[in-house]
């Protein structure tokens, strides 16, 4: 069965942690099944023979070397920028201290 994929509980928990999502026990097993289904579906691509195909680095196949000139454009005002801030202190974004 080339299209069947399995994913263990540990992997689901790891992915959840990377995405900063808390999962209940039921959710873990739900996503274990669903992720396996998705990967199995994608896995279909492995049936194709790609021996003579170059890796696709970008969907816009022929478009490359797009540049802009090194010129300064007007930035937003700090006032506008900070409208998106959850909280601010003077002109800084204020966030909970995060220890990496």
């Amino acid at each position, binding site marked *: 069965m080339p299209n069947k994929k399995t994913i263990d509980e540990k992997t689901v928990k790891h992915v959840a942690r990377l995405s900063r999502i808390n999962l209940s026990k039921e959710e873990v097993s739900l996503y274990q099944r669903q992720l396996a289904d998705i990967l199995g579906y994608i896995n279909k691509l492995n049936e194709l023979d790609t021996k003579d195909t170059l890796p696709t680095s970008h969907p816009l196949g022929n478009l*490359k070397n*797009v*540049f802009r000139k090194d010129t300064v*454009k007007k*930035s937003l005002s700090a006032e506008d920028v*900070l409208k998106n801030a959850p909280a601010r*202190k003077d002109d800084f974004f204020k*966030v909970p201290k995060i220890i990496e």
Partner: protein
Amino acid sequence: MKDYEIVIGLEAHVQLLTQSKVFCGCSTKFGLAPNSSTCPVCLGLPGALPVLNEKAFLHAIKTALALKCRIQDIIKFDRKNYYYPDLPKNFQISQYDKPLAYNGYLEIEHNNAKKKIRITRVHLEEDAGKLMHDPGKGLSYIDFNRTGIPLLEIVSEPDMRSPDEGSAYLQDLKSILQYLKVSDCNMEEGSLRCDANISVRPKGEGSLGVKAELKNMNSFKAVRDALSYEAERQVELLRKGESVVQETRLWNERKGITELMRTKEETHDYRYFPEPDLVPLTVDKKEIEKIKRSLPELPQAKKKRFTALYGLGKYDAGVLTRDMEISNFFEETIKLFDKPKKIANWLSGDIASILNERKTTIGETRFKPAHLAELLELIRAEEISGKIAKEILPEIFRLGISPKEIVRSKGLKQIKDAGELTSVIDDVLRENKKSIDDYKKGKKNALIFLVGQVMRKTKGRANPKIVNEILKKRLDDGG
């Protein structure tokens, strides 16, 4: 320590010299008001699209070629995903499996021996924002101005075997970057940053020891000190039969030690994937050859030329060529005053100390090659003594006026005229009868003392050779 070998690899982050950021038009100027140089692209607002800065890309290619790297056939960008508020997008645009360039080397010269340090990879990425922590309140304040500033990451192989080699590599890398004019390499402003991987192993051991990653070294001295400290710490652990733990450590400049930042228990999983908003890049062979040909003379070649052409020693040539501005200054001065060794001595001595003291570069001062040439000519013609020349040097730096002018307006010209010196000598002899007696009793040192007195009275302006001659004659004649 001598039973162990130190193994060091360095990872440098270089801010490329551009007017605007790497993927948007915001200014890269240092010290702007917080969050005043940001836009939808570098803030990662929905729908905003990055476009690569051509200058940043060319700087990167130039640097890669100067470091003898191979340019990637198809260059692409990737997203490095992580949760830390220094990047508002939650990912950094960087390069993963197809770095811009790879397999290069830099040849360092240390203890008179040449050594190739291999360069693993060179890649282009965007810088992150600056966080200021307020631990008391459990808060952090973010300035996103630095977000999106073009950075070049240059990674070496673990080819260095001592802290001095590490520092020599970094110094040479900095020189090359400055010669290429791709970065100002100001370590204090963070435009050149360096992390180190360091491990130790018993001499003769083939496999590498467990490494620690060092961060937060903001000067060449800090790099050397941190590496020395860390090597000793690791050797000490092994001696005691303990083992080195793979971890990230921060250099604490004040305490002079490295401190644990984090262990690599859960190694980062950055989930790299290709950046879909940027298209791939290629540089064809003809273009690569063209850029190679346009590279300026680099420090090593210049050093070689300085020893061959001007007869300078390796040390002098090395000191002069480390800094491009100094090397240019040297060559400009030589056109006006053809004594290379004399010029070299002044540049690496008194002039270097003034620049150090003022934390500036020679190009930023008002001191010009013509000033140095004129000063040296005044000494050669015995118009002023070397001592007076040293004394007026800071003033030339400050005012940017000709040494001749300073000598004239301050009346510093050397007194060589015997008639003019006679009255001073008369005074000195009258006031130091004892020394005359001493001299006559055979104490030759008394003469040196008397010359000193004349120099003092003339504030260093008398020509000591002539004073010496006159005094000796007077004393021997029974003065």
